[in-house]
């Protein structure tokens, strides 16, 4: 187990480094003078000169990368071309809001998706199963931004139950969380149904039933516990995906998170912030994947890594 843990962490390291390289190259690959991209379109010649000196833009790419990496390790992500604030400060302001939204969304997905999947799997072929599956199919086919706008139209504009946009009270969180979680909910419902059906057809379930165990015990103690193991993995991965899905949801609901910051920065060509935001989401995603893998190894006794 320890060996596996170490190896898994070792594998994540080059990935993280690759992510940093790609984000570093973003500014160097984009058309235009990197100094202008980093300093903003309206920068004075002095600022441009300062940026060139600071990032060593007159030197070779490998050297530039080392300068970038060294600054990154010190927590220096540069300065926003728009607000002139350090990028790290910007990220610190916006990231917690995205985490809050994504956590609420994954909660919605787990609390509705998994029970729906279980209900469907217990009565395969029934009307309930069919409607859950149709809803789930619609759920994965629906653009998040369309669902969000319809939700605003019905529940905010029409019924007036929730605020249209912004952040503040718990009521502000409801619609964005459901919107962001809709795809994950559908995915979890389908996944839970699939794995549970597979487990229910196994021999040991027949054995459990044959020895006279109550159906409730068979389902919850024998079947569900095993069926949920792969679901846990998906929940973890989906949480990472939600961090990026938040880009669209935050734009709809004017939620002051990382996604809104990212889109606004791309449109304003504020590259230091774009780099920082992308880096933060990607690194979080790699770390979440790592955690999920380790968790998987811990909860599934069948998995032996060596």
């Amino acid at each position, binding site marked *: 187990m320890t060996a596996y843990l170490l190896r898994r962490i070792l594998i994540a390291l080059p990935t993280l480094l690759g992510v940093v390289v790609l984000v570093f190259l973003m500014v160097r690959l984009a058309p235009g003078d990197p100094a202008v991209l980093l300093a903003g379109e309206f920068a004075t010649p002095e600022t441009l000169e300062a940026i060139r000196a600071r990032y060593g833009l007159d030197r070779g790419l490998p050297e530039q990368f080392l300068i970038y990496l060294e600054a990154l390790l010190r927590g220096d992500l540069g300065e926003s071309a728009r607000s002139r604030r350090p990028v790290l400060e910007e990220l610190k302001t916006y990231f917690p809001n995205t985490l809050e939204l994504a956590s609420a969304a994954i909660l919605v997905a787990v609390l509705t998706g998994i029970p729906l999947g279980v209900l469907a799997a217990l009565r395969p072929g029934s009307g309930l199963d069919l409607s859950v599956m149709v809803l789930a199919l619609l759920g994965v*086919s629906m*653009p998040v931004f*369309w669902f969000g706008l319809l939700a605003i139209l019905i529940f905010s504009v029409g019924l007036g139950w929730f605020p249209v946009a912004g952040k503040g009270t718990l009521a502000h969180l409801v619609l964005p969380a459901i919107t962001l979680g809709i795809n994950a909910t559908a995915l979890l419902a389908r996944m839970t149904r699939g794995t549970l059906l597979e487990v229910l057809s196994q021999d040991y379930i027949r054995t459990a039933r044959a020895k006279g165990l109550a159906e409730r015990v068979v389902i919850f103690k024998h079947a569900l516990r095993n069926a949920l193991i792969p679901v846990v993995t998906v929940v973890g991965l989906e949480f990472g995906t939600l961090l990026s899905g938040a880009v669209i949801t935050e734009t709809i609901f004017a939620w002051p998170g990382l996604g809104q910051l990212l889109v606004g920065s791309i449109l304003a060509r504020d590259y230091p912030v774009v780099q920082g935001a992308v880096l933060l*989401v990607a*690194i979080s995603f790699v770390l979440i994947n790592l955690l999920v893998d380790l968790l998987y190894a811990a909860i599934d006794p069948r998995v032996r890594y060596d």
Partner: protein
Amino acid sequence: MTRPWRRFLRNRLAQAGLLLLFLYLLGALFAPFLAPYSPYSQDLRSTYIPPLAGLSLRGPGGEWGLWVSPAFRHPLEGVQVRWEEKYPVRFLVRGEAWSWLGVRGELHLFGVEGPARLYLLGTDEQGRDLFSRILYGIPISLSIGLVAVGIGLLLGTPLGALPAYLGGRWDLLAQRLVDILLAFPGILLAIVLVAILGPGLLNGMIAVGIAAVPIYARLVRGVVLSLKSLDYVEAARALGASHARVLLRHILPNALTPLLIQTSLQMAIAILFAAGLGFLGLGARPPEPEWGLMLARGREYLAVAPHVATFPGLAIVGLVLAFNLLGDALRDALDPRSR
């Protein structure tokens, strides 16, 4: 036809998906004929007209039929209809000239005879006919999907197959590359690429396509790894087949089924991502009738004119649903594990 394919065609989900897709293809092929107006022709006096505004079933003399009265937006009082004027709806009428796939014409399936317009799904912020724009948006979304999936397949298959077949250092290297690309979850990779390439429809397609590369690579790698040490592959080598021949003729054909399933599902994802980019202002530019972009426009006047955001979204859902239905049905029919 082989049994799996017959099973596929008998599947209700597959039939629904095929029917939906067929309708969309029909709409794309005959867009200028089915659309009463050009997707770009605007009328600033009739912005945000609700669907079917001004339509009545009785003519000026009380006769039955489809009649349209001119609808326009009054700056203060909102939508107004001049009910005293009525013009008949005609089928197969001559209207705005169009040129489509090398064919020129001016015939439209339906239109209004006289100075009024029939807005089946209402108008947008520039008084353009939403129904026409949604029809013209079908080929855009379909080509986004095709180009993106094409890029994913073309780059992803060799990236997955070659290193896996060669093994060793190459496999390790390719795997790290795929891992790095997969570290940007969901739509983020496409957004990163757009940030590099710059916004636009073509760049959006490329970005969504490259975002699909690691997914294809991982899929093909799995197939190649599971097969390359099997006896029949070794037998082919022993008989003197070159590596290229073994890979292309003996191993990769086995990847066709999973690739087909993945491609159908990937079309759905590509269309969703591209619409998402359009919605964020990172994809297609105005005045292109791209659904995501149209939806974004509708967002500003959601309470006044909900139809502007609703119908393009519905169009996206239908097309994405078609590919998801097909992908699911293909998997049920062709994937031996799901039986």
